[in-house]
């Protein structure tokens, strides 16, 4: 049995720490290189950069690649956002000789959720060592229209977050709200849950985004099935994790609970952690066609430590 511990940490402690492995991403967003730019390469024994094979020449991708080559002496390893297998192999190779807890740094600011879920799954299933994972997120500034019109391509469970798809009691959907109001409604329509909860980043990266999220999702928020809308801080995954776990406690263990995080990545991470903690909870990945809009770093950084102990 593995035990999760989720803690907020400050970014300074990350900069002063040493890691066995780090995972970075190179994509089209400017913020891909914000966190790697603040960390000294010599604190990481085995850094890896994965470069998205999708939209490989869009936005700031080439500048990002150059940054990794210059500062980190790393050539991004091409990897699809829908694939995660090489991550297991790299983690295994670089940690198998260690006889102490493994320390991993993951900058998931511009990462596919499959990739950072893969790190968690590796820690759950592939090793009996204690694994300390520091997840870092650089808050972003979006220069976009009022609402993203995402065309849904796929709705599947995140691996390791399938939940129990047979219910004895009611079905519960927990939506993380973002800037895709219509897509969230479309998923709600498909899930046909009895009870709905929603949560949004508040305080978020800016007050303007909180109001925008509420505006864009007003139909879901005003849906008669929506029992509560929880404002959860973007900067504290520890708080989100605890609050989300408490929210669903009422419906466990017999309810069929599905998280649909469509908001910022720290909330996605919190949802994945809750789903990995409780077997009856699923976490869906709703993906759309790529929308290569640039996201600039807004300055704020969210740092979270997840410690997994126990036998796999």
């Amino acid at each position, binding site marked *: 049995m593995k035990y999760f511990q989720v803690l907020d940490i400050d970014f300074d402690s990350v900069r002063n720490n040493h890691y066995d492995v780090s995972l970075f991403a190179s994509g089209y967003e400017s913020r891909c290189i914000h966190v790697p730019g603040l960390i000294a390469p010599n604190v990481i024994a085995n850094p890896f950069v994965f470069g998205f094979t999708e939209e490989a020449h869009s936005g700031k991708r080439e500048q990002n690649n150059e940054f990794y080559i210059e500062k980190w002496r790393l050539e991004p390893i091409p990897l699809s956002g*829908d*694939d995660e*297998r090489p991550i*297991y192999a790299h983690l*295994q190779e670089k940690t198998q000789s260690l006889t102490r807890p493994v320390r991993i740094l993951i900058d998931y600011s511009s990462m596919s959720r499959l990739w950072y879920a*893969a790190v968690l*799954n*590796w820690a*759950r*299933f*592939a090793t009996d060592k204690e694994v300390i994972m520091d997840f870092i997120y650089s808050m972003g500034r979006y220069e976009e229209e009022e609402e993203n*019109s*995402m*065309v*849904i*391509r*796929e*709705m*599947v*469970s*995140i*691996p*390791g977050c*399938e*939940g*129990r*798809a*047979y219910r*004895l009691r*009611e*079905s519960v959907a927990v939506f993380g709200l973002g800037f*895709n109001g*219509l*897509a969230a*409604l*479309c998923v709600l*329509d*498909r*899930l*046909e*849950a*009895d009870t709905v909860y929603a949560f949004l980043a508040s305080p978020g990266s800016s007050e303007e985004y909180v109001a925008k999220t509420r505006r864009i999702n007003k*139909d879901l928020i005003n849906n*008669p*099935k929506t029992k509560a809308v929880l404002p959860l801080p973007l900067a504290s995954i520890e708080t989100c994790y605890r609050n989300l776990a408490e929210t669903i406690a009422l419906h466990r263990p017999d309810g*069929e609970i*599905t998280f649909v995080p469509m908001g910022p990545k720290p909330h996605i991470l919190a949802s994945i952690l809750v789903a990995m903690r409780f*077997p009856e909870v*699923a976490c*869906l*990945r709703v993906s759309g066609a790529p929308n290569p809009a640039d996201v600039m770093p807004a300055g704020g950084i969210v740092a979270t430590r997840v410690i997994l102990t126990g036998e*796999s």
Partner: protein
Amino acid sequence: MNNEPSKHRRNLFEVDNARNLSMHELVETFIPTQSFWRLLSAKHHVVLGARGQGKTALAKMISHDHLALMAHTRDEPRAKSAVLDQQFIGIYLPTRLEWVGGLNNKPWLNERERETFFQWRLNIASCIAFIPIASSCILTYIQGRAKQAQAERELSQQLSKDWLLELGPRFGDLLQLRRHLEDTDYRKQIQILRQRVAGSLPKGDMPEGVAFGIELFAPLRQGIKQLSRLLSINRNCAWLLCLDEAEFLNYTDHRIINSHMRAYPDNLFIKLTTMPYCHYTLATNIGADLVNGHDFEYVNIDSDRVLNARYTGETDTIGTRFGRTLFNRLIEASDPQAAERSGREILNVNDFLGESAILDQHREDWDSSSENMKLLEKYASPETIARAHRLIGTGRFRNEISRKIHGALLLRKQVDELKGNRALSAYSGARMAIRCADDNPRLLIRIFNALLMLRSREQKKIMRVRRPSAISPEGQTLALRTLSASIFNQIRSFQDVGPELQDFIHMLGEYMHTNLHEKPLTTDQVTSVTIDDSISEREWKLITVAVGHGLLHPNVGPGNPDEMPWKEGTFHLAYALAPHFLLLPRRGKAANLSTIKRFYVKRDEKKILSKKFGPEQLSLFDEKSK
């Protein structure tokens, strides 16, 4: 059997999906349709129905626990004989998004592995679904609590032996067994992921649920055999496995289920529910395709006579009656004491919403100086005006002119005069609300609920209504238009085709709007589109998705009500979209798709020219929706 409904009642107008109704609520509010009785038969069926059309309600009602409750609490002789004579025993198995989400999230499995996993999962899911039905059968066919408990223990132990193999635990009750199977499914997921992550299973780990890795439905058959033996179930009993929401499965999954329908002539019959055009293949794994009418039959519930009235041509009776009955059932089930408290009959939908000025037939004044005649002369085409003058005073005038054009004239006048603070009132009245639901139970409930919520905002108690219409026609119109716009807006995020489909529907709606509001009126308004086999694959895809979501409805004939048209035919725009496009929700004539496309291109060219050389035009509907 515990047939006592819960004392706690909730507002069932807020529950627009049969999936979320308790057994008592569903049984209480269910209206048996022709399709329902058709499904109670020893045949494989593929049930086609747009979203919200009631597929889940049908599938759940066929399951033994629901049917037994219906037989016990309602006067339905066919349900009674099905249960008491052990003619049919139904099992409900949903293949929902959450279930399929755990099936399709393993892209690394090759086709063979994916098929094996699907088969394994369907096997264990069908056994999990069988357990509550086994309980229901024990409660129905064995008298006395002690004997029932003994039967349950015997069955649980026998099924533990069969399904968990010799080394597994032996459970003394069915709930424990069910929980164990659910855990097995979860552990199987983890096991597959662990193999992916670590490359292999830890030493000593056995594959989970070995008993379910055999041919499709073999473990379920074994369960049926044990239960039949224990309860001495009628040998001729047909077991009906209702696989609900099969649109979420894929081509390969359908092929595997088809193979079962093709190959097994025993007493287990599949009732597969899916959206139109979402029975993805007739292929099987045994080299011979399924033959419609021979191996199975389609049941198109969108053309159910009880739900709608397309065959009779009388659009005002049957469909409306279904809506009125549903409204009454929901009121009764939500608040059974309401009638007693109010000392009057339960509120009906007419009391609640009043008459429709546009759709209800009235005695109209058509004198030469009447308001109606003035409107006709203002908006109708010269031919129509001439014909009206010719026929006035004859019996044919009502049938050929006034009945057909009166609603369109009133709607056009209202929209024409919409200025400043004036509000539309055209989309009001019971008949209008029901018509705009397109005979779709879920939409009907959503409309009723939107109107009830509006009414509660107006702070009037439902049972104290004294005036003919509880909600103002303007309020009703606003509510229907809001709902209609939300249906239209949501199209944009549909899987794969969202923006394209929304543009396509917008093109149809705008064409119909222009015909109704900008061109001289005739007695037939354009409300449908005709396609032929020259249609592109992409446009055909859009039409099939639109039909699946109830945005377009194919005109099916009485001779072949279950057959969906393929790349040709006439499709009418959902009446649910009529308030958004300001159309008359009434069956009219069809325009060819190529004509509509030409109109749209021309209109776009005009807009571009206007932008370039003149003042920017306001969009068609913004000014009207004030």
